[in-house]
Each structure stands twice: as C-alpha cells, then as structure tokens.
C-alpha cells in the first residue's frame, strides 16, 4: 500500500493504475538523465572507454556461439587484460598491505628508489611494512598514467591508518579495514604524493582534498567531488602543510592532532585545490543539478565548523538515559584504557572462536593479496567496495558483458589499449578509483559518471553477457570519501537503494522496493567500547555514530532526529589516543560498527548464564535414522567449545511417547533417567538437577552422551510426543532462558501439538497452487511466543524422511528467533551426503557464537519508517524485534516506506542496535550505522539500485505473499516487479526510443535473478517439490544472509579445467586462481571441461564426458572418466599442481562461509546430473521457461 515494495507485489491491476502517474510525471524526470547523458559521454570516452551501449554489436539473443566457445574466448580475452605485466607488477606492490610480512616487501622495494617524504613516515606509521610499501609506490606516481594504482593504495593506507584511531589493540585491527577499503576518489599528482601519504599515515582525513584536487589538475575539469563530507574542513586542513607537519608528528599521535588543528587554521591559504571538497558540500542539496558551483564556500564553512571547532570539551554527563530495554539509567563499571583493551580481547576471542568468521578472512586476504604476486585480480572480498563499481557501476569498457563472445572482444579492445598505455590493469584495484574519480568529478554535472554507467541502458534482448567476471558486489553509495570510509560494511547492512529517493512519490515511480538487509550478528571483529555513559540522542535514543555533526565542542546534532545534544564530559576524553578534547576522534565516531559494553541500565535482570537444553527424539524412527550416535559424538567433541563461561548450564531431555528427563546432579555416580508418562499435563520431576552446571557435572554429561545411543537402540515406540516435550523444555528453561535444540524425525502424533499429514503427494507438481504453506495449528506459535517471553530460543533440526509438517513445526523457531535445519531423507547409512552435512552443520552450530535475551531496534532518519520485518523473531513494537537468541548466521530484512519528504536533508541514516547478553554473561550493544545519500532524481535512484538486495527483499516479500495469499499470486507479483521496473524505466528515464527490454545497467541482472527465484524450490510450480522442502526453502529465504541467499538463488558457475594463474590471488604461499563467472546455461558447458557450481551450501563439480584425462587424473585421482565413482564427494589431496590449484580455489570459496559446503562430483551421465542441471536457471526446464522466453513474456506483459 504505502511502500513501493508492497505495491510491487500487487497484482497487475493495481500496477496499471499506478503506472499512469508515471507517465504523467515523466517529463520533469527526463530532463536530468537525458541531458547528462549526452554531456557525460565525452568524459567517459576520455578515459578510454568507448560508449558501449551503442557500439555493442547485438548478439542475437539465443543463437549464440557454440557452448564451448564461450569459455575459450573468455580466457583468451583475459589474457589480453594482463598484457602489460611489468606495470601491473608495480600495481600489485601498491596493493599490498600492512599485514604482509615485511620481508616480502623489502625485496621489491629495494629495486625502487625511495622517495624523500617517506622516511618521515616511518616514525609515524605504526606498522613498518607500510613504509616499505610506500616506497614502492612512488615510482608509479611519477607517471601520470599509473595513478590509478595509487588510489587504491591510498584507500588501503586509509584503512590502516584508521586502525590506530579505532583501537590500538590488535583485535581491533582487522575490523577496521572492513569499511574504509575504498574511499578516495582521487588522482594525486606525482608531486603531491609524498606529502599525501605522509599525511595519511598520521591523520586519516587529511588526504582526500589533495587527492581530489589532483583530478582537477589532471583533467582540467572543474568538478567538485560529490561529497557530503562531514569533515571536509578538517580533512582539508592538514594537506596544506603536510610535509612539515608530518615530521613533527612522528613522535606522538597527540601532537599530530594538534598540528592538524594548525593545519586547519591555515586552510584559507590552501586555496583552490580544496575547492573540490567544498564543492562536495555544495552538492548536497541539489544532487544532480548540473550547475553546482566550483567555489562553494558553504562546504568550507561546514568543514571548518566540524573539523576545527569540534575539538573542545563539553561537560554534560546527562546524555544517557534509558536503554532499549527501557531500563533507567545509572552509571557503573570501569573505563580505563586497559580495561577496554581487555574487553576488546575478550570480544575478539568470542568472535574469532566461531569457525568461519566472515570478516577477518577477507581482511587477511586483503592484506595478503598484494604480498608477492606478479599479476592478479583483486580477491572478491577485497572487491567488496573496490570492485563493486565494475560489477554494477562499472566502467563501460570493463563491462563484463563484453568479455565473452567475439563481438564484445573487438569492442573492448580499443579501450584496452588505452588502459594498458596507462598501465591500467583491468581487473585490479583501479576500478574503484575510476569510479571514485568520476564520483569526485561528477558533482558538478548532474549525474556522476559512475551513475552514467549504472544507468547505461541495457537492452536485455540483445546483450547476452551480463554477468561480471567475479561475483557481484554491493554498489557503493554515492557519498563523499569521508563518509564512504566510515560507512557500514555492505556485508552487515545493505539497502536496496543506495540512493534514497526523496519522497514516497519518487519511490513509487521507481517501482523498486525500499528496504534494508541486515546481518547484524555476523562474525566480525569490531571495536569494543567500555564507558560509563553511552552517548545517545536524548530524544530518539540514537547511539552516537560517525554521521552526527558536531556543532561545536560541546554539542552534537543527531543525524536521525536532528536534535542538538550535549557532549558529556567523559566523551571528551579519547581512551584510544589518551587525549582530551577530541570527541570526534572517539572510536564511536570513527566507526560505524561498534560494540558497547552495557552497564546495568541495559539489564532487566542480571545477565543470564549460557543455558543449553537438548531435546532429542528417540522414537523408533529416530533410531532408524541413526542421528543420535553422531549427535552425541559431536557434542562430546565440542563440549568444551560450547560458548559459555563457568556458569554454563546444560540439560538433556529425550522423548518418544513419554518424556525422559536426566538427572545430572553433581555427586551422582551415573546419570539418572526420570520418565514422565503423563504427557497431557507435563510436569518437571526435579527442579534443580535437570539443568546442571556443565563444569561441575561434566563427567556425568559425558557419561550420558556415551550411553545415550545404546540406551534406545531397541526402542520400538513409533509415536512422538513433541508438543509435550517442548512444553517440558519450556518449563525447564523458563527460570533462566537460553537455547533449546530440538531434534525431530517425524510428524508429532501425541499430546498437544499433534499434527496430521496434510500433504497430498499427487499435488506435488501441481501448477495450480500449493496448499498448506501455513501452520495447521497455532500450538507451536503460541509456545514460541511464550518461549520468546522467557528468553528461550528454540532451534529445530528436522531429520525426517516422511512428511513432518514443517510448516507447522517451523513456527516454534520462527517466533522464538531460532534457526531451522532440515535434512530430508536423513539416514546414517543410506544417505552419507546428508550425514556429512549434518555433522558439519552441527559442529558449526555447537561452536558458533550466541547472544541471549536480545532485542534489536532499527532507527532511521526522520521521515522514513519501518514497514515490515522479515526473519525469525517476534516483533514487539513497530521498530523493536525481540530475539530470544541471536546467532551469527541469521539475517533480517526490513521493508521501509517514506512517510515525510526527506528534502531537508541530503543524507539518510539507518541504525540497527542489537542489545544482547554474550555467552560470557556480559551485556553488550552492537551498533551498526549506515548512511546513504538522498536524491530527488529518478535516474539517481536507478543508478544506486542494488540488484541483489532488491532481489532478496522481493524474495522475502514473495514468501510472505505466498503464505498469506497464494503461491501463484506471489509468482505473479515477482514477474510484475520486473515488468514494472522495465516500464517505469522506459517511461521515466530512458529517452532512447529503443524497442525491446531496456533496463539500467545497475539492474541488468534483475530479470535473471527473478527468473531464478521463480525456479527455486520455494516458489516453483510444476516441478515435483515436497511440501516440507518447499517450506524449508521459504524459511531459508527469510533467514539467510544476502550473499548466501544469492548463491542459492543464482549459483556461481566456473570452469575449472583450464584455470590459469592469470589474475590469481597469491595468499601466503598458495596461488588461488580466479576463473570467470559463467552464465547458468547448458550452452556454457562443454563436454571437454570440468565446471564448478557454487550453490552456497553445496558445490557441484560437473565433469564432462570428454574431460581431459589430465584433469581427471590430477584432480580426482582416477585414471579416466569411466572410473570416477558415482557418488564421489571429496577432492583427494593430490600433490599435482592442478589439484593444488583446484583445492586452493575451493578452500578460498569456503573460507568466508559459516557452514562449510559439501562438494559433489557429478558425472555427465550420472543420474545425479539432474540436480546439477536444475540449477542452470537460464535454460528451459520441464515446467519453466528459459531466460529468453521469460524476457519475451515480460515484453508481452509490457505491451498489454
């Protein structure tokens, strides 16, 4: 109704209604893009990129080259990209980072004459490697051509530099680079470089202005950066007199800060160069107006205000009041530096204790990447920010679409030459710089160049190669470098529109849903802050964050409600630098993701101990499936790794038609089983001995786990009293709260919550619609709400071979913020693949981080409001989620609507605050803040659209729709979302009178993604799908983090047999090749190849019939194709280079996932190949159309 997302999902009737206003209001919006297009192209060309969209020879949609050709051209092409190797080498020396062993650095650096300014650096830069790498940098700077490389280097330095600000402790280090990786739209002149780098090493914000200035010189276009800098003045300041200052700064940081003050004083003399950053500010109000002046003094003013004046003390300590849990305030606890460091370590510990910690890994790649390799592509993690532009905003010449197929080949080669002249390496870091540059330059003209690229109309019927060579990354918001640097990581916080439309009307016109995708508790290392007063806005309770404005020394203005608050006295002291009077240097203001140690104000009761209760099905069915033995083994192994402290409590409960409790009281010689057979009125036989302290009763617990599998091996009881068992679990856990883990293997048949089979197997492949997607009874939901009220989270493991009515059972986890695992047809002998998956999942499950009694509140800038939440939780009020347990693997989605116009601000901010009790019994608050620009042009909205986030949000909405209405409704709504987007774009933005399906380049993958969604288990019709599997897929959609979900929806396909080292990553001593992504179509496969499909939870390695024997022998260890065993599910560790490369690539793919993925080797002739081919979503399947047919369908719908 109100949000566009919602309307998107409306039936087509409401669409046509809505589309009329679009047409009516079109003219005003056409102006912007239309003009800028023409005006912007020349600059595009001057960077060497031909304007692609016209010149792309149209490859007829479905009559493409023979399947096997594509990869070949591909590689040939990529060879081209790397032609200028010696220059690239220099590049990569620039990339390397701080974490790399210095020795690696020193070798190359010796060959390069060090530049003068650097020596001064050494003193001021904390890690020595940095300095060395500066030296390497220098030479490329000398030539204007290589300047792209330097930018990337700058951004890296930036991160590094942030670390000292954040947290001096090593734990905080890896956390920092997350955000700031890409930041500087800059092209420093060679002369400036030395001063630049030195300034960076001391004061982060010092750099941007100079860098921005440079492009002005070089390109003689006087465009200011599109920056809405919070600290422009501040950042401007140091640059004017870097050289001298830096030398002085070597000794202490404090000193350095002082000097930066002086620097800001001398700002006026700084003159023109800084205008760029000033212009940034001028860009604020009318983003997209072509007439932004170069001399924008307002920007300067702001800068001065912030950077300079902000540095004085303030004294009100009263800023903190009540926590989200509505606790009254008081202050407590310590605030020493040392304490904080301890806490950080503790935090680091807990976060790193979980296995697949997401962010540290990327960072380590980050750091290692440049270490020693001659030519490479950036690792995908690294591309988080950097490569994003070329995924979606990308520079035309890099457009991945053109890399495949002969036509594109010829087309992109001219741009090639240009790039190679300037030692520009196609796949390397430069991209972001280009786009940053264009961002920097774009402020003056209406649409920045990256937007031009993102807006480049793509005719879907003609362009076939749409995929980027590496997995798509989140687009970067069009913010000032300063803000970009501190903005929240897209892995944590992502918005479907990185440019927020100013009004709901504009949003409706764009026909895209507005929403957030959140992964708030994911494994990462982040600065942990301990202080007496947690500074928050007095009216809206927003936590202080990097996007607030300091009006003067003692006051800050909330960025969400615009209230002016006092800075408390304590906040004036910076524990990191141990200096006074710099509130803006506090870690809270330097990081958009921070964690506070909360005081007792944030507690309703003393923090609960970690409490785990395992509820195990031991009926005959369960014994048959044989899961119990593996569960007990794994738990025994991981007993010490369960997150918790000395207070940790555990309990066990088994059930068939009765409920068995286990008395594990310390002092007993062996566990005592207590049987309660009255399942209609469950009672707890003993109150203090069933949940026991793990430490004290460890021996008994071990005893129990060893004897449990044998205890029930003779069970003949087929009934299952799950409902009563859950009631018992609820009663057992109510006093403390905690986590209940339920293992269930069949339909519950006894007592409360008994269910009947509702699935009609004949209807599995019906196209008419699917019944029974909702719960049959509200027993589980009510129980879940009770659990949620007592802070009990219920996780469900369903290992059923029969229908078990997951639609009803899942409610127990859905509303108590638990997680759901499903292993269809689990059997310990007959289904080894499921068994292995079960074991891996369980291991991760036992050891992953956990937060108890949590609440999460999402706040957003005045004018925006939250519409609907998606995920597993209970919504307590319109913006508050109650999460009994929070785990690092579940994500949330939020639909937003715009209630009031956002015209009075240029930035929109979102803050998610998660208050939880850690497993160590500490109350903590994790705060993420995301900042996005507000735009008033439709074209800007499209340019900032994040196609993956849009897809995920739509998927969530479609799931809701299919449960509340019907599956076919949901499917129609998804198709309509595409139709809508295309028609809205056509009528409002694109002024080209092109026929066919034209979408902005940023959204070019949208139809593919939607088609893939329609072919997912959750939403498909016509293909036989078991109801439980469908419901499980729906649950997954609701809780999986975006990247995992996207891999499930649209798997990544790579060709493995001809991987070359070109573009490979070099990590430590392993080489990780980076093959290109292939479209999910059988025509991309070839019989003589081996292809890897990465579906998130599972990898498929498809071996073609004529696959080279070398590959089969070297990688799979089999003499020939025929001898590959049919159910092979691992890659042997062979000592051949090919095998090592393949395994390195697989390990690298696995590295940043929470749950390790299985690998299945699929032979071309095996029956298993159907599972592989069903993921080739662009092909026609028995019941669903191919991509081309889908596009034609869209076109028909449009012309209706």
């Amino acid at each position, binding site marked *: 109704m*109100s949000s566009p997302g*919602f309307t998107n999902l409306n039936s087509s009737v409401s669409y046509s209604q809505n589309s009329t206003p679009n047409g009516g209001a079109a003219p005003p919006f056409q102006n912007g893009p239309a003009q800028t297009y023409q005006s912007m192209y020349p600059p595009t060309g001057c960077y060497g990129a031909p304007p692609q969209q016209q010149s792309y020879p149209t490859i007829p949609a479905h009559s493409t080259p023979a399947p096997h050709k594509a990869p070949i051209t591909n590689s040939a092409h990529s060879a081209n990209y790397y032609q200028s190797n010696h220059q690239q080498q220099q590049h990569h020396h620039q990339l390397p980072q701080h974490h790399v062993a210095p020795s690696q650095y020193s070798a190359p650096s010796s060959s390069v004459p060090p530049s003068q300014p650097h020596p001064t650096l050494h003193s001021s830069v904390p890690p020595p490697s940095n300095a060395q790498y500066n030296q390497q940098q220098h030479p490329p700077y000398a030539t204007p051509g290589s300047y792209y490389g330097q930018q990337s280097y700058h951004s890296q330095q930036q991160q590094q530099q942030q670390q000292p600000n954040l947290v001096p402790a090593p734990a905080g280090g890896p956390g920092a680079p997350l955000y700031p990786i890409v930041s500087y739209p800059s092209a420093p002149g060679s002369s400036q470089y030395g001063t630049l780098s030195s300034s960076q090493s001391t004061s982060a914000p010092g750099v941007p202005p100079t860098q921005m200035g440079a492009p002005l010189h070089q390109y003689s276009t006087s465009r200011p950066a599109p920056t809405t800098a919070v600290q422009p003045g501040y950042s401007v300041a140091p640059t004017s007199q870097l050289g001298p200052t830096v030398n002085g700064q070597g000794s202490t940081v404090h000193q350095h800060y002082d000097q930066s003050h002086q620097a800001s004083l001398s700002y006026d003399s700084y003159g023109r160069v800084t205008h760029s950053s000033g212009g940034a500010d001028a860009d604020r109000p009318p983003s997209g107006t072509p007439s932004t002046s170069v001399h924008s003094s307002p920007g300067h003013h702001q800068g001065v205000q912030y950077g300079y004046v902000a540095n004085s003390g303030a004294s009100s300590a009263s800023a903190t009041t009540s926590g989200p849990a509505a606790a009254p305030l008081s202050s407590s606890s310590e605030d020493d530096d040392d304490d904080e460091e301890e806490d950080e370590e503790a935090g680091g510990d807990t976060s790193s204790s979980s296995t697949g910690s997401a962010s540290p890994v990327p960072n380590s790649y980050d750091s290692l990447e440049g270490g020693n390799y001659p030519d490479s592509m950036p690792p995908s993690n690294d591309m988080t920010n950097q490569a994003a532009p070329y995924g979606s905003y990308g520079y035309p010449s890099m457009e991945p679409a053109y890399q495949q197929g002969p036509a594109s080949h010829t087309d992109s080669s001219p741009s090639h030459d240009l790039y190679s002249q300037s030692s520009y390496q196609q796949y390397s870091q430069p991209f972001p710089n280009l786009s940053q540059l264009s961002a920097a330059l774009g402020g003056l003209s209406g649409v920045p160049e990256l937007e031009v690229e993102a807006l480049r109309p793509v005719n879907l019927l003609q362009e076939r190669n749409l995929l980027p060579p590496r997995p798509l990354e989140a687009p970067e918001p069009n913010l000032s470098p300063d803000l970009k640097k501190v903005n929240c990581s897209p892995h944590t916080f992502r918005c479907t529109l990185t440019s927020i439309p100013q009004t709901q009307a504009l949003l409706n016109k764009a026909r895209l849903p507005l929403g957030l995708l959140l992964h708030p508790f994911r494994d990462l290392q982040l600065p942990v802050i301990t202080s007496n007063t947690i500074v928050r806005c007095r009216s809206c309770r927003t936590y202080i964050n990097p996007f607030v404005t300091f009006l003067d020394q003692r006051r800050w203005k909330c960025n969400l409600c615009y209230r002016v608050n006092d800075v408390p006295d304590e906040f004036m002291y910076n524990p990191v630098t141990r200096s006074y009077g710099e509130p803006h240097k506090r870690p809270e203001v330097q990081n958009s993701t921070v964690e506070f140690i909360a005081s007792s104000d944030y507690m309703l009761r003393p923090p609960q101990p970690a409490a785990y209760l395992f509820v195990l099905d031991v009926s005959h069915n369960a014994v048959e499936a044989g899961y119990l033995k593996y569960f007990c083994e794994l738990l025994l192994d991981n007993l010490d790794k369960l997150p918790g402290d000395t207070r940790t409590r555990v309990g066990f409960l088994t059930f068939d038609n009765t409920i068995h409790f286990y008395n594990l009281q310390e002092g007993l010689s062996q566990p005592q089983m207590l049987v309660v057979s009255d399942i209609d009125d469950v009672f707890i036989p003993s109150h203090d001995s069933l949940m026991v302290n793990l430490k004290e009763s460890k021996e008994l617990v071990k005893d129990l786990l060893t004897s449990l599998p044998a205890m029930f091996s003779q069970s003949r009881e087929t009934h299952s009293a799950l409902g009563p068992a859950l009631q018992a679990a609820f009663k057992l856990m109510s006093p403390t709260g905690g986590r209940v883990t339920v293992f269930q293997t069949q339909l519950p048949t006894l007592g409360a919550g008994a269910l009947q089979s509702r699935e009609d197997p004949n209807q599995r492949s019906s196209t008419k619609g699917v019944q029974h997607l909702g719960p049959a*009874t509200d027993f589980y939901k009510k129980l879940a*709400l009770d659990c949620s009220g007592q802070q009990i989270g219920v996780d469900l493991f369903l290992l059923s071979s029969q229908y078990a009515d997951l639609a009803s059972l899942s409610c127990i986890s859905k509303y108590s913020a638990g997680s759901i695992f499903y292993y269809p047809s689990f059997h310990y002998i007959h289904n080894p693949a499921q068994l292995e998956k079960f074991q891996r999942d369980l291991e991760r499950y036992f050891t992953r981080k956990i937060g108890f009694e949590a609440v999460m509140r999402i706040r957003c800038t005045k004018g925006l409001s939250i*519409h609907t939440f998606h995920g597993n939780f209970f919504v307590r009020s319109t913006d508050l989620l109650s999460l009994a347990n929070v785990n690092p693997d579940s994500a949330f989605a939020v*639909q937003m609507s715009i209630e009031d116009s956002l015209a009075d601000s240029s930035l929109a901010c979102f803050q998610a605050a998660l208050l939880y009790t850690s497993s160590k019994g500490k109350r903590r608050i994790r705060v993420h803040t995301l900042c996005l620009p507000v735009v008033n042009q439709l074209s800007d909205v499209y340019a900032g659209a994040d196609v993956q986030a849009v897809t995920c949000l739509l998927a969530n909405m479609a799931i809701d729709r299919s449960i509340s209405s019907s599956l076919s409704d949901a499917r129609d709504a998804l198709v309509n979302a595409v139709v809508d987007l295309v028609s809205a774009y056509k009528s409002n933005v694109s002024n080209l009178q092109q026929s066919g399906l034209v979408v902005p380049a940023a959204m070019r993958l949208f139809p593919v993604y939607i088609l893939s969604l329609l072919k997912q288990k959750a939403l498909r019709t016509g293909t036989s799908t078991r109801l439980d599997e469908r419901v499980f897929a729906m649950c997954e959609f609701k809780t999986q983090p975006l990247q995992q979900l996207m891999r499930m929806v649209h798997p990544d396909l790579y060709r493995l047999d001809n991987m070359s080292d070109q573009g490979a990553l070099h990590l430590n001593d392993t080489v990780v090749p980076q093959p290109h992504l292939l479209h999910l179509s059988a025509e991309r496969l070839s019989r003589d190849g081996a292809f890897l499909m990465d579906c998130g939870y599972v990898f498929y390695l498809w071996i073609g019939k004529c696959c080279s024997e070398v590959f089969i022998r070297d990688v799979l260890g089999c003499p020939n194709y025929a001898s590959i065993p049919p159910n092979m599910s691992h890659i042997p560790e062979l000592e051949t280079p090919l095998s090592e490369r393949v395994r390195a690539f697989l390990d690298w793919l696995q590295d940043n996932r929470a749950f390790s993925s299985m690998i299945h080797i699929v032979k071309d002739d095996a029956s298993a190949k159907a599972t592989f081919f069903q993921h080739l979503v662009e092909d026609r399947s028995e019941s669903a159309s191919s991509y081309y047919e889908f596009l034609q369908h869209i076109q028909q719908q449009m012309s209706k």
Partner: protein
Amino acid sequence: MAFTFAAFCYMLALLLTAALIFFAIWHLVLPEYLIHFFFCVMFFCAAEWLTLCLNLPLLAYHVWRYMSRPVMSCPGLYDPTTIMNADILAFCQKEGWCKLAFYLLSFFYYLYGMIYVLVSS
C-alpha cells in the same frame, strides 16, 4: 404513543452503539461483533427491516472477518506475530475509523428511529 418492542430495540441499540463507539476505538473486536450481532437479531425480531438492511453489510463483514482470522486456538482476531506489520496495523486502524464513523451515524439514526417509533405508534 406507546412503548413498543421496536422502540425498546432502538433504545437498546442506542445504548449499545455508544459502547461500540468505544470498542471500535479500543479494538475490542469480539465483544463488538457480538453486540452488533445481538441488536441485529433484535431488529429482525422487531421487523425493522430498513434498519436491519442498513446493518447487514457490516454484519456480513464481521462474519467474513471472523472466518478469515488467522489459525488460532484462542478467541481473538489479531495475531500477535503479524499485527506489528505496518500494513496490517494500518488496515486495522483504518477499519477502526470507518466503524467509528458508522457507529456515530447509526447512533443518531437510532435516536431518530426511537423517537419516530415512539411518536408514530
């Protein structure tokens, strides 16, 4: 002028509608439905066809609304897990306002009806 059954019905409806006005604001849905159903039956017995016709659409809506309530084992219409959804919340609020208007109008109508019946009989 005599105090007929119809007049009694109108008087009762008048009083109950006053209560309904508050129920519509507070979203006490089940009592509201019951009361409304109750005086509809009364009007039926009193053979006040016009008044009954005016109330029938709302009666039908109430029946439909109750039939299509979420799966629940306890009485009530609102599901605690979805009611905070902005759409549903907005819909329920709008529904409340519409009913409030309807009850206010019918309040005066019943007043008029009662007097009319009293005077005419």
